[in-house]
């Protein structure tokens, strides 16, 4: 392999000279005494090779050797990844023993000694393409497919396949051959370069199946779909992380991959404290059993931050190819963009807006495009639903990362500072947020079938009421409480009912945190019924007082188990209260 030496050091940017050929994005190791520090080629200019080092560069000197590997940054995929906590380069953080991260310490992603009960799924003699399922093993109650190599070109023939039985992760379980006698041995492990999309599927279709998140404001107003994309911009403290955690705990997905990208370590701790406790109704196990965390927290080396989102995406693609529904969450994609900016600045590239690299929009678009709903070669389906957070500088959405992401992501969940200040959580702004999927005819059909034929109509009505409520509230604050007709107060307060009861949701309450679709449908109908009712008031003050009581009772319902005795008792109380004022 090519050798080189260090010529310059600017923070984590290394300039090296190589004796031989190197490739863009090639991985190399800087030899600093005992330590070998992983790094990636990011630019080549004449004899200067620019390298970003994934580790602290303290103590490095000009003249130190650099060993190029001939490979790009790759992940290793196979059974045994579920419930692991990896760093951005897929090192297993739990098998490192020291309290502090040691520079140059790399741990394997998979356990080489692990053995798995293999069940064949294919027949000897059949033709095989990249990603085809050859067999499966069971990991944490989930069927994990053993697939034909992802880099297989064209069709191969399955020459032999292991019988059902226990095999080591690197034991050969199948052999493939193509016409030209080219033989290939296949085991349970594959490698794949993270920056290359894994496309071992037959086609990508427009997604249409709603992905239930249990978060009312999303499921009701702006639903996301299996294989869809969305992003959550919001100023600091507006609730991005809490929202993502809530979604990950509840969403109807098989695999959850969480990329903690340049955010707080304590938030990762929260996941690995809570998820092992959370029951998973579908497998009978724990939520952690089907979760993978990629942790590149804000104090970890910046260059690995960029790698972390790609690592997470590649793992997601691996599971999608085996027909699973993957939910991929990245918090925060702005930190990744900032890592690109830091590098681009050190490379003295021509800066784009706010000093971000010129190609930021393209980089983000390429990444989002890797999500999606696919048909596999065997007719099965798989999906990656991707939700990223964006942390706009100064909370201002007119900044490059938000604008670039808006061009790619199909759902926009804009968190509002104002709502967060008012503790109206989740603070998703009901007016400016959107889901493009709601406009898809195939999605509308799906919703009609799954929830009710009038569902979309009701949702649109709820949106209209919220917008109207906002307009009327503006009027009231301009003209004064008694400067407007009482009807304005009535409609405004009815929109507040929707806000308090459907939109607001306590992520920390056991019951309120998760709302299933049947309950959501019931409650939406309930509040829309109230909207249609006509009430009698003597003056505008009575309106607010009355609706505060209504809201209070509906909230008690939200806190009670659905259709429990308590729930029904509150509803009865509500009924009689509404009747007090109701005009037939």
């Amino acid at each position, binding site marked *: 392999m090519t050798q080189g030496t260090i*010529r*310059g*050091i*600017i*923070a984590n940017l290394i300039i090296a000279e190589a004796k031989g050929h190197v490739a863009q994005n090639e991985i190399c190791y800087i030899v600093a005494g005992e330590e070998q520090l992983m790094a990636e080629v990011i630019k080549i200019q004449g004899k200067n090779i620019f390298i970003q080092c994934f580790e*602290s560069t*303290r*103590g*490095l*000197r*000009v003249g130190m050797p650099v060993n190029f590997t001939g490979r790009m940054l790759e992940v290793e995929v196979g059974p045994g990844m579920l419930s692991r906590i990896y760093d951005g380069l897929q090192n297993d*953080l*739990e098998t*490192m023993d020291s*309290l*502090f*991260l040691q520079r140059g310490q790399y741990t394997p992603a998979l356990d080489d000694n692990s053995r798995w009960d293999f069940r064949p799924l294919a027949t000897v003699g059949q033709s095989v393409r990249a990603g085809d399922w050859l067999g499966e093993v069971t990991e944490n109650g989930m069927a994990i497919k053993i697939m034909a190599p992802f880099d297989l070109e064209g069709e191969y023939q399955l020459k032999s396949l292991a019988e059902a039985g226990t095999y080591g992760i690197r034991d050969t379980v199948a052999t493939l051959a193509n016409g030209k006698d080219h033989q290939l041995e296949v085991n349970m492990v594959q490698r794949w370069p993270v920056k290359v999309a894994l496309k071992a599927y037959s086609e990508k279709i427009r997604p249409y199946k709603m992905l239930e998140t249990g978060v009312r404001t999303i499921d009701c107003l702006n639903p996301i779909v299996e294989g869809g994309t969305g992003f959550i911009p919001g100023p*600091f*403290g507006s609730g991005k992380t809490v929202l993502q955690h809530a979604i990950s705990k509840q969403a109807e997905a098989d695999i959850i991959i969480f990329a903690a990208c340049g955010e*707080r*370590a*304590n938030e990762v*701790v*929260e996941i690995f*404290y809570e998820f092992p406790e959370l029951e998973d109704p579908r497998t009978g196990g724990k939520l952690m059993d089907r979760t993978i965390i990629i*942790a590149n*927290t*804000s*104090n*970890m080396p*910046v260059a690995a931050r960029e790698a972390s989102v790609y690592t997470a995406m590649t793992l997601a693609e691996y599971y999608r190819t085996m027909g699973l529904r993957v939910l991929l969450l990245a918090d925060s994609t702005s*930190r990744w963009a*900032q890592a690109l*900016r*830091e590098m681009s*600045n050190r490379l*003295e590239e021509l*800066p784009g807006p*706010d*000093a971000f690299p010129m190609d930021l929009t393209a980089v983000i678009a390429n990444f989002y495009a890797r999500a999606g709903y696919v048909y596999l070669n065997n007719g099965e389906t798989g999906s990656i639903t991707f939700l990223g957070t964006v*942390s706009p*500088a100064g*909370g*201002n959405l007119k900044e490059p990362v938000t604008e670039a992401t808006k061009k790619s992501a199909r759902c926009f969940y804009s968190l509002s500072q104002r709502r967060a*200040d*008012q*503790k109206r959580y989740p603070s998703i702004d009901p007016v400016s947020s959107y889901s493009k999927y709601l406009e898809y005819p195939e999605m509308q059909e799906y919703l009609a079938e799954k929830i009710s034929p009038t569902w979309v109509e009701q949702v649109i009505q709820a949106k209209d009421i919220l917008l109207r409520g906002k307009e009327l509230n503006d009027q009231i*604050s301009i003209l*004064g*409480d*008694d400067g407007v007709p009482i009807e304005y107060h009535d409609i405004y307060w009815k929109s507040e009912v929707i806000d308090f009861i459907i939109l607001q949701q306590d992520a920390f309450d056991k019951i309120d945190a998760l709302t299933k679709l049947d309950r959501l449908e019931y409650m939406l109908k309930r509040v829309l019924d109230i909207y249609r009712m006509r009430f009698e008031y003597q003056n505008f*003050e009575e309106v*607010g*007082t009355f609706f*505060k*009581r209504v*809201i*209070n009772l509906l909230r*008690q319902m939200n*806190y009670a188990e659905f259709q429990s005795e308590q729930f029904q008792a509150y509803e009865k109380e509500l009924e009689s209260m509404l009747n007090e004022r109701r005009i037939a």
Partner: protein
Amino acid sequence: MQQALKPIYSQIKRITKATCSLHASTASNEEMALVHGRLAQVVKIIGEEVTLQVFSGTEGIPTNAEVIFMGHAPTLKVGEELAGRFFNAYGKPIDGGPEVEGELRETGGPSINPTKRLQPNEVIPTGIAGIDLNNTLVTGQKIPFFADPDQPFNQVMADVALRADADRIILGGIGLAHDDYLFFKKIFENAGALDRIVSFINTTEDPSIERLLVPDMALAAAEYFAVDKNEKVLVLLTDLTLYCDALSIVSNNMDQISSKDNMPASLYSDLARIYEKAAQFPAGGSITIIAVTTLSGGDITHAIPDNTGYITEGQLFLRRDTEISKTIVDPFRSLSRLKQLVIGKKTREDHPQVMNAAVRLYADAANAKTKMQNGFDLTEYDQRCMDFAKEYANYLLAIDVNVPINQMLDTTWKLFGRYFSQDEVAIKRELVNKYWKEKSPAVS
């Protein structure tokens, strides 16, 4: 002399306000050096040319100045002897006492493996209801005060530190006014707490680039006590805005493209490296960081508070409440993100709901106030909200409050009962049944 063995150079090629460059073949990245007797650090190496950042500034440095490379990154000698002592940004005593003997450690060391962290779970009671009730602090947390320069943040921070029941307090003074330095010294002395405290002080009179060293020094000492001695350590850093200003001076002198507000593009990572040292360690020790970020005219969209807010686990806003003539902890913009780990669990069950309801009613009062200022009539409800708000601010939000948490909750229930109906308070029925206090005439 030890230094005689170290490589010496005397051919400086380029000098800016904060840096100088020379040809040297042996330098390593981030290595410390002495330039004309002043401490400096390697920040860039291109071939033979090495750029050094000179902490005390480059005024008067001649091109033939002697440059000695020291062979190591910044270090601090750590040991029990640090206790009760005052040091400058380089870790040299400024209290007239002897040099500390102890193990030499590099500062700015590696990060803790996230999987080795424990989840923070211990309340830090401060007696200040604006903090304990609404923004409960937890050991292992990192949180700054966002305050305009004229607000009494150092006083509040000193109160918090002394009441916090920490084994060790590390004070990192970054561009601290000399008077404030004396204030801290005095208040710690009076409390008889001096032996629990270690201070690294850079005052406004010291060179500004030296400030870059203070957080790492303070945190290296903190890690010694928290990891080696399993102590509960509280680190006070005031004022990190001045740290950021120093960062921007250096980066501008190195011709880096600056991003928003003239700050270096790496500001987020630079601050995160400091704040993420806060942790609950598995063996029982912890580092909690309480910092100060001064604002200019309350603007939190400026790059410094903005990046800080994205890193820390909440922020505490101080605001002058003219109605009661006191400084209060603003319940709207303040936030402790770790509070949900402890409230209602380590504190009384009604804590979360009481806290939220009170803040919501306080917000209604703010709306009523706006209405009034715009010349509209107030409703009877508005009036009650405003009366509630005044007492809430006075008995709970003001920074001079010092009571236990249960008393804060009881006081809030009293105010609820006094001004509102149960529907208006809208708290879970079970809790209302248990804690509701019918119109009680007087508070506390």
